[in-house]
């Protein structure tokens, strides 16, 4: 009787796996990160099937967890995945309608340390996009590999869009000239909320300022905030840019192409101050 409540997809899935692949082939020692075997259970690596009820529970639970502990990036990610279906469809359609975006959807580039040529990027002239991005990574002590895996999106293409959005987030910091402190993150969130319409961004945009002190709040509401919203609405869709082919492009040129104004206030990264 409990079979009825176990997602039917799990039983079907296991059945397909076990008759098609050879589970009794001795498995080579898999690393802890790769615990979900060489064949995966869902539509893509890391995919977990969930019922609508589970998605709703996840959305509520992850929202609460993220509010209690904003450093739980995995919870923020889960919140984004479970609430962002409509926004993701919208983003995907915008990408399809743009030639460069369409190329990205077909080629599926990934921004990871392994795919970036750091030495080449370091040798680029100052003011070029690649050099500034590298400077951003160093100054703020971040790495492009720290993004959570997409787990709860039930469409393979939408999952890629979500992943691309996460990977582009750091590049947005560079484009907008914002560091990774709280104020910088909130400004980027406002921009993203205006651009993508993801509920998670909107939630972050609304709740993020609660943690800012008075002077930063003032800066946010008077100059940075309106600038971010204005540009978010007016700029080209940031997911439509094939960043991997534009490392040597001048940053100012890229900003003009995307219709992004330079930031009104220069914020310093945590390490520099």
């Amino acid at each position, binding site marked *: 009787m*409990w079979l009825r*409540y*176990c997602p039917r997809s799990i039983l079907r899935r296991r*059945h397909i796996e076990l008759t098609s692949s050879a*589970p009794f082939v001795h498995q080579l020692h898999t690393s802890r990160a790769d615990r979900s075997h060489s064949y995966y259970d869902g539509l893509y690596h890391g995919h977990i099937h969930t*019922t609508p009820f*589970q998605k709703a529970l*996840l959305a509520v639970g*992850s929202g609460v967890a993220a509010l209690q502990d904003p450093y739980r990036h995995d919870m923020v990610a889960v919140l984004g995945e479970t609430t962002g279906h409509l926004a993701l469809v919208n983003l995907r359609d915008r990408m399809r309608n743009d030639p460069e975006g369409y190329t990205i959807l077909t080629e599926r580039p990934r921004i990871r340390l392994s795919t970036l040529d750091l030495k080449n990027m370091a040798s680029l002239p100052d003011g070029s996009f690649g050099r500034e991005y590298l400077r951003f990574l160093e100054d703020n002590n971040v790495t492009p590999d720290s993004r959570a895996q997409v787990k709860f999106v039930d469409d393979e293409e939408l999952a890629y869009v979500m992943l691309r959005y996460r990977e582009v987030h750091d590049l947005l910091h560079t484009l907008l000239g914002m560091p990774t402190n709280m104020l910088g993150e909130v400004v980027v969130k406002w921009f993203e909320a205006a651009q993508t319409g993801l509920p998670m961004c909107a939630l972050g945009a609304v709740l993020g300022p609660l943690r800012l002190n008075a002077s930063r709040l003032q800066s946010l509401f008077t100059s940075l905030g309106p600038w971010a919203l204005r540009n978010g609405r007016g700029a080209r869709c940031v997911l439509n840019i094939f960043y991997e082919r534009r490392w040597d492009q001048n940053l100012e040129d890229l900003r003009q192409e995307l219709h992004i104004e330079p930031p009104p206030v220069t914020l310093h990264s945590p390490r520099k101050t």
Partner: protein
Amino acid sequence: MAASVRTFVRSLSRKNAGFSAVLRLSDCRWFSGKAEERSTHFGFETVSETEKASKVYKVFENVAQKYDVMNDAMSLGIHRLWKDALLHVMHPQPGARLLDVAGGTGKASIPAEHADKSRQNPDNIWLRLPPPPLGDIAFRFLEYVRSQQERQQRRAVLLGQTPSWQDVSDRYPDGGGAPESAVVVCDINKEMLKVGRQRADSRGVTTGLSWVVGDAEELPFNDDQFDLYTIAFGIRNVTHIDQALKEALRVLKPGGRFLCLEFSKVTNPVLERLYDVYSFQVIPVLGEVIAGDWKSYQYLVESIRKFPDQEEFKGLMEDSGFFCVQYFNLTGGVVALHSGFKL
């Protein structure tokens, strides 16, 4: 109806295993030492036996840190009542030696005298939940035995109002006094033991407690060592249950008691439906939100369904050589407490 469901489940799992598994199983009968090719279940998956052990190990390695918090969240705190019931049935006396297998985090029961100390210094890694006033088997056992000891002393004082010289000299503590009760907590997973030891240290409970790494199917103890053997919510993770039962029989003294607390088949059909929905829909979500690990809790929930029910487990115990086997259903059959004696 339960029987038909059971056969349906068995046929499904057989179908899942596929033809290759059936062939391998029959091969094994003729070839010994081919353990890697014998299959068993890992939740709803069918895996080879050597694989199962390492997969289970990895699951518990991942869940160790948040184990106690998750237990509270999943069972809504009721797991403490289950463990209290186990102690009540066990009714240990001072001097008893307990072996708690798969007792992992020993999940700290603070004996009453330490309870106030811990409330002043909350252990913040266990987050926003208050520290459990009474925790897991090992610590509950120590407290129970201590309270029994006090009770006996009080009784002796009441009875011995006009003692003879003989009585007075008998009551003088000699060397170590009454035989000390001891608990040995044994677990195959070092992570779980580490967490348990941290908790014991932070609560200040150190005497009478040992932590040993060991496999339930091959315990690192001599024969006839323990008065009591408990395994709470651990036996379904063992690859060969009969082997674990035989080992339990071996290390128990004659007259020793085996107690097993495990998730089992719910008897009430209404409750069963609710329980199934809760298990499959809510628990993995809780795992993801609290511990960041969906798959381990999916495994945990599936492994409960694969475990033999109350009567089958009773049969297994009797086959392994336990006498006077009985079971008690707790919370309508969600948990079953099995008890057997070595005679």
